[in-house]
């Protein structure tokens, strides 16, 4: 018996020494080939992921949206006592004092590049995507590349076979521009030919054509040259192609920002519009499906508000305002929340004049003391999506025909050929929006018209740069550094990839 025990122990000891091979099993995740070589991704799932990433990118008020809008003369986020200081990120954007560690600049860089890489993986033949899946991935890669070109002026690139120890090569602004154009051109034949409808939250021929028009319109800025008639003709050609699919201007301005199908929406995402609504409304402004109230932040500038027709000091109904300036209801209609530009006394859903949180009348002022030192009622609020259509409705327009229409007008003004004149096109839109017709158009009036039509739709910074106004001073911004037409490459990116060179000035 003792011997049995003895041998039992010894045999157990040796049994133990017949070791495990220490391999993990793919029990809850999908392993790439163990050799580390790229073996493809699931194209459908990855595409869903890319659309999801885009949705997330659009719906937040930070990052992409903030860089495109808060750095312009259209939006600012004043610090209001304990609110919206946020370590200075909003103030730095508006007064052009951002640096290379700004979190929005870093996050946007990472998000855009990550999307580019994920699209590259889908496009790779080893992923076995269908022609349409590859085309959609190319559209999404071009969409992200477009913003890299616009914001940063350069774009790093990594192939699927380049592991983490490879420093990505860097495309210049011109190379990245060509890359986006090539992706879109290659994608168009395999993208669905969609007319106005509910499926436009995925890539289509018209979305690609719109983005090509946008690229060619900005090409002279991206390349540092002057406008070229051939490029402008391309803009016109692509806009006409979109129009040929049944897209057109449509009346009823604020109805365009709902889930209903219209002829203007070229591309939308299922992003929640909650941030667009609530980041501007006061804490006490509320809707039944949002018990939390507004966040009392985003504000526009009086100079921008004054671009619209109407009584400058009141936006209550009957102030002679054009449709796009919206109105402030004083009779409890529309949940007591206005459309467009909210200025002056605000009223609740019963038509009663509201007070702020410490009992003073809630009057949104046109002027502000500055970026700092604000109380909770300074600044004109700006709202396009309305809680009447769902406080957090999942539908945000990204590409809209009115923009294409104005791009065409601008392209003609910049030397493109068409049977229409810029003045005709601009007045066509203005008439539809119940604004008086202009007698002439020049660059300034196109820029102003784009502002009135497209405020809060991601394009103001891009427009101001294209019209040469971005480095001029405006309200609460004195910095005129010309190099700020580009954002810096984030400092973390410079450390991780020595091929990147910081943009001039930073």
């Amino acid at each position, binding site marked *: 018996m003792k011997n049995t025990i003895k041998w039992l122990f010894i045999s157990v000891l040796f049994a*133990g020494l017949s070791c495990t091979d220490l391999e993990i099993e793919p029990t809850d995740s999908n392993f790439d080939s163990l050799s580390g070589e790229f073996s493809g991704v699931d194209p459908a799932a990855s595409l869903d*992921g*890319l659309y999801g990433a885009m949705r997330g990118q659009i719906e937040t008020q930070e990052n992409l949206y903030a860089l495109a809008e808060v750095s312009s003369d259209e939006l600012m986020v004043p610090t209001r006592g*304990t609110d919206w200081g946020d370590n200075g990120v909003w103030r730095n954007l508006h007064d052009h004092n951002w640096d290379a560690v700004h979190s929005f600049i870093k996050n946007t860089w990472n998000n855009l590049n*990550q999307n580019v890489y994920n699209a590259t993986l889908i496009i790779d033949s080893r992923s076995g995507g269908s022609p349409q899946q590859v085309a959609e991935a190319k559209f999404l890669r071009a969409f992200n590349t477009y913003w890299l070109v616009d914001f940063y002026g350069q774009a790093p690139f990594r192939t699927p076979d380049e592991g983490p120890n490879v420093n990505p090569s860097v495309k210049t602004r011109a190379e990245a521009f060509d890359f986006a154009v090539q992706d879109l051109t290659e994608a168009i034949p395999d993208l669905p030919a969609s007319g106005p409808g509910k499926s436009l939250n995925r890539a289509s021929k018209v979305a690609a054509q719109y983005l090509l028009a946008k690229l060619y319109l900005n090409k002279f800025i991206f390349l540092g040259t002057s406008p070229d008639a051939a490029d402008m003709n391309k803009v016109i050609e692509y806009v006409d192609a979109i129009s040929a699919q049944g897209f057109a201007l449509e009346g009823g301005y604020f109805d365009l920002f709902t889930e209903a199908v219209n002829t203007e929406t070229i591309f939308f995402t299922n992003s*929640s519009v909650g941030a667009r609504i609530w980041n501007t409304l006061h804490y006490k402004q509320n809707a039944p499906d949002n*018990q939390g109230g507004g966040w009392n932040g985003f504000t526009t500038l009086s100079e921008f508000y004054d671009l619209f027709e109407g009584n400058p000091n009141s936006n209550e109904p009957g102030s002679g305002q054009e449709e796009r300036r919206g109105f402030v209801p004083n009779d409890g209609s529309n949940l007591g929340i206005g459309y467009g530009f909210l200025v002056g006394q605000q009223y609740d859903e019963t038509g009663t004049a509201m007070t702020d949180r410490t009992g003073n009348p809630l009057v949104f002022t046109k002027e502000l003391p500055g970026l700092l030192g604000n109380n909770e009622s300074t600044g004109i609020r700006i709202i396009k999506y309305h809680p009447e259509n769902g406080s*957090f409705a999942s539908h945000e327009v990204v590409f809209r025909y009115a923009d294409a229409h104005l791009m065409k007008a601008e392209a003609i003004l910049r030397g493109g050929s068409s049977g229409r004149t810029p003045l005709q096109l601009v007045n066509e839109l203005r008439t539809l929006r119940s604004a008086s017709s202009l007698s002439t158009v020049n660059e300034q009036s196109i820029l102003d018209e784009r502002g009135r039509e497209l405020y809060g739709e991601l394009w103001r910074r891009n427009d101001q740069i294209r019209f040469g106004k971005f480095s001029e001073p405006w309200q609460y911004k004195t910095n005129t550094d010309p190099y700020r037409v580009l954002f810096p490459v984030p400092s*973390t990116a410079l450390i991780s990839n020595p091929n990147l060179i910081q943009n001039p000035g930073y």
Partner: protein
Amino acid sequence: MKQNLLRKVIFGFLFLTVGILHSQTINGIVSDNSGPLPGVNVIFKGTTNGTQTDLDGKYILDNAPSGAVLVFSFVGYKTQEVIVGVQTNINVNLVEDAALLDEVVLIGYGTTTVKDATGAVTTVSSEDFNGGVISSPEQLIQGKSAGVQISQSSGAPGAGIAVRIRGTSSVRSNNNPLFVVDGIPLSDGGTAGAANLGGGGGSAKNPLSFLNPNDIESMTILKDASATAIYGSRGANGVVIITTKSGKKGSGGVFEFTSNQSLSSVAKTYDLLDREQYLGAITQFGGDASALEFGSSTNWQNVIFREVISTDNALSYANNYGAGNIRASFGYVNQLGIIENSSQERITGRVNATHKFFDDKLKVDANLSYSRVNDESPMVTNTSGSQGDLLGATYFANPTWPNDVNFTSGDGKLNPAQLLEYYQDLANTDRVLLNLSGEYSILESLKAKVNLGFDESNSERAQILSAEVDGFNNGASGNGRGSLQQVNVKNKLMDLTLNYTKAFDNSNLEILVGYSYQSFQNYGTSINAFGLNAQNFNQAVSNLENSANIIGNAINVPYQQYGYGPNGLFINQIIPEINSNVSMPLPAGVSVKSITGDLYNNTDELQSFFTRLNYKIADKYLFTFTLRADGSTRFGPNNQYGYFPSGAFAWQLQDEDFIPEGFSTLKLRLGYGITGNQDGLGYGNFISRQRFSGAGIANDGVVNLGNGGFVAFANPNLKWEETAQAGIGFDYGFFDDRLTGSIDIYHKTTTDLLLQQEAAQPAVQPFVFSNLDAKVINKGIEFAINYDVIRRPDVNWNVGFNISYNENEVQDFDGLIQTGQINGNGLTGAYAQLLAQGQPLFSYYLREFGGFDADGISIYPNGDKQEFVGKNALPDYILGISTSFSYKRFDFNAFLTGQYGQYIYNNTANAFFTAGVINSGQNVITKVLTNGESPANAPDVSTRFLEKGDFLRLQNVSVGYRLPFEGSGFFKTFRLSLTGQNLFVITPYSGLDPEVDTPKSLNNIPSSGIDYTSYPRAKTYTFGINATF
């Protein structure tokens, strides 16, 4: 033989002590040099039959067969055997065993003695444990050992505890030591953190709460690398070996009953404005007080805080029957928190049995413990935003509001009464820990041991935020949100060791070789729901569970994730192939509007070979060498095995002629070793791997399934963090060791730091996981002294003191990583700490605050920019002071603990106590009214909110009295005690308590020293009884 074995096994494991028919009676007295010895075991050799001596050292044995051998054994004495002849009276004089007198020290896969130990090792045994309300074992030894910083992150029942042995060495990994319970190294985790339903996410509970402190015999802290290297890739943060009580001391069968009743109340609250002060303040800052006057007068802190009585009862039975011993225990604790709706209930059961077979050649140990921990938590979170959590809402709440759950402010402010009424967070955790070991003496000098361990924990946490709650802007109001998290851990262990000892003329050799295999499985589900469709919490939880079950059962294909919502039911599949947004038929009976579920299940393995060699020459020169090879499935293929060597030398200097006679002890210890930390690695981070990200439910109930994508990049070189530690120490003793102590100096260099670095974009993910070529240095000195001021039969007085100093610095790191997220209104994106080279970990990076200008706006003399301010969150000095005094039947203990040199960032003050807050109609503390700040001022992150965190706390003071029951009647001993915990704390810190660490990690880098709506600490008085019978 077989029958005999079977019988012994049955006896051993079913704890039957045997009474046998008798024919002959033997009696006698057992004594030592100082008189009769009570409690000596007297048994017939080879059996379990026997008895114990009584208080007069007398024993009587019936049924003694002629020729039998009597074995007399007693702890601390040499065992004697006497052959029973014809005599019926056998008196025995036991001799003290000098070797045994030396306290046994656990060193991992074995033991040594204090005298022979070569490493920096401290043992704290149960009589020295901290008393009072103890929710987890680390608290038992807080302040008991130099160089060991133990801090509870908050005052919540079951709150997480940070243990730092000789500083903080890892940038992002867990810095807690490895805990080994009865030979089983535990893994981290096992409890779920709080899901964010709208008020911020919360911490997981301390997983070590499952151990009943009454069951713990001793805790041994292995501090230096020469001691921890035997644990290889898990030894870098030190090791704490927990030994549970055996039945050894229960000769003849002893029951022990302990009961504590504790009265707790909040130790400190904030000086918030009352009704009149508040209305005055509104006017002072230009508001219309009448608009904010709701007619009541409510002290909101009184609404959420409470005075509670907690109970802790434990019953155990121990029996030492000679050939083995057994101890069984049962514990019930119901610890109530000082905030409403917070409690921790623990039910624990344990059986520890040891039995020896074959003339003591085979020793079998079995330890089985089961525990059930039920946690109830209020909405006290780490990362609440502008509306605050329960505590934040309490600080904000207008004191003129009525204390009424139906009250709504209407502008998005949270009513604390609603957060109490409409939020429920219940968790329960079942844990079984089993180990079986057999040690067999193959030869006199060769022992083989098999140790098998099994550790399973199943935890479920259900949180509900009801639809009735007002003011949440995430759709919870009006719909309700809920979360159900199932977290399961299953670990298996097999250790095989051979131990060989050999005595030479003038030296002794001991060699240990071993093999260990451990697997760690983690699996579970995370479920979130929206639109709970319920009238009460029970219905909400059951709707949540039922809906999850119905959907889980309806999906008959493998999946990672599902989402059910207004658009239908969709799943994401990850194995064997990836398919996203696959539409599934809608099952009937789903009672919630939207629900998502996400599964995980992964297993890691660790396989190790180790050896230790101890060599002792002339009882003076002691050498130890260890080597461990750890193979882990967490390491990349190019670094599958890590090798961790160590060496130590100790010299008993007091035996040398050149050392003055005055030293009763003087031992020099030198040690060097390399250890690892693989905790931060996680599963499968070296391989290119895809998974879907978490699903979300939008504010309108629309479900967004997660996006597929890579969660890890291939990195075949990925490996553990490595720490090289060198140490030198002296143990000293004077006056026949009435005065003892030690001094240690150490230097630790941690390299190959694990970090999620910013990936070089474009990349699949924002971060790449890799080992950095940077260092963290910790160097320090530890000093301990203990003096028996009075050592007399009736009077004993002992004073102990320990202090340690540690310096920390990051070197060769060419990045800058922000951590220490600061939350609150207008503080999005704000942070307070920066990881950078040349700075200690957790260095503050802030605006330098220079007061307010005439307009009440903050002045930043160095500009409106953040910079290093030369302060950090790590304490320079930690100390413990203890004293114990006994006089006859009375005893008295007091224990103080302190930390010096650390700074706290008061995020609570930053977010809640500024002029802008009162100007938005929310309450503040009185100081805000007079500090000169304008309500339009932006309270940016600055040194304005950085405070010294020094403290000295009277942690524990207790008085006990032993009733004179010994030997008379039912009770063997009976002790009454009164314990006070946290009776005072001396600190300049203005917050509720300076011992605070709200987890505020950023960029996957943990923070330290930030206080944000931290659960306050209690002041507790405990009345206890302890009886044996």
